[in-house]
């Protein structure tokens, strides 16, 4: 994909994401999170959803392999339950080029089936062209 064509507010993907208990256990193991809260209360770590959504975004816009993550904001409002489908949308917040370095800001919104906002997140990526 030609990254220079990405425009503000352009939707990169809109997709349902549901994480199973096994996937959450795998995520918690990978990040070394020893909290039993998630599996005991059957709730999904918001960062696990964001991680999946980011991987989707990377694939959707075919970001080059050397792309680097430089900043991350995340605001959580509600929790998602294990196995529940949540709707994630990723849009371009800004896309600028300075001295052959592209700064891409992606905005993620994730809502529950009942339209409650689970989180919003903003990711800044740097791509060397």
């Amino acid at each position, binding site marked *: 994909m030609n990254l220079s064509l990405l425009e503000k507010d352009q939707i990169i993907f809109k997709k349902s994401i549901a994480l199973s208990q096994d996937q959450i256990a795998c995520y918690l193991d990978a*990040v070394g999170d020893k909290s039993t809260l998630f599996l005991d209360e059957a709730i999904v770590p*918001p960062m696990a959803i964001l991680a999946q959504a980011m991987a989707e975004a990377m694939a959707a816009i075919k970001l080059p392999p050397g792309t680097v993550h430089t900043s991350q904001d995340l605001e959580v409002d509600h929790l998602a339950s294990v196995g529940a489908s949540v709707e994630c949308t990723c849009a371009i917040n800004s896309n600028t080029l300075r001295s052959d370095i592209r700064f891409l800001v992606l905005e993620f919104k994730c809502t529950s089936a009942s339209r409650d906002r689970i989180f919003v997140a903003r990711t800044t990526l740097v791509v060397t062209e």
Partner: protein
Amino acid sequence: MGKIPEKLKPIEHVITQERLIKYAEASGDYNPLHLDEEFARNTPYGKTIAHGMLILAFISALMTSAFGNTWLRTGKLKARFRAPVFPGDVVKVNAQLKSSNDEEVVYQVIVINQNESQVITGDAKLKLDSQGLEDYV
């Protein structure tokens, strides 16, 4: 409501290539910059680097261990990645109370490596509601 701690007990993590593979499998992020040593050798870093989201997850885990559901329900994290983390590094996550009022608490969070270099800096904010900080453990 429990007393708001000035400083949270720091946590340390050892970064290994195996851990990056595990995180890639858990997150779906297979960027070769994190996984392919040959590819990474030809980048400015010269070797593989950890996923930023992996290191960021350590901050969230620290906040969850301190504030439980209150963090998970109301948390806001604003972070800047300052330097790459490489396999073999040992990172330490610190959180120091920055401000608090009747409505919210803000911690300055800093992740440093074994050379005391900052790799992530940021703020972690949580709201105080009718449940206060009862989840604080």
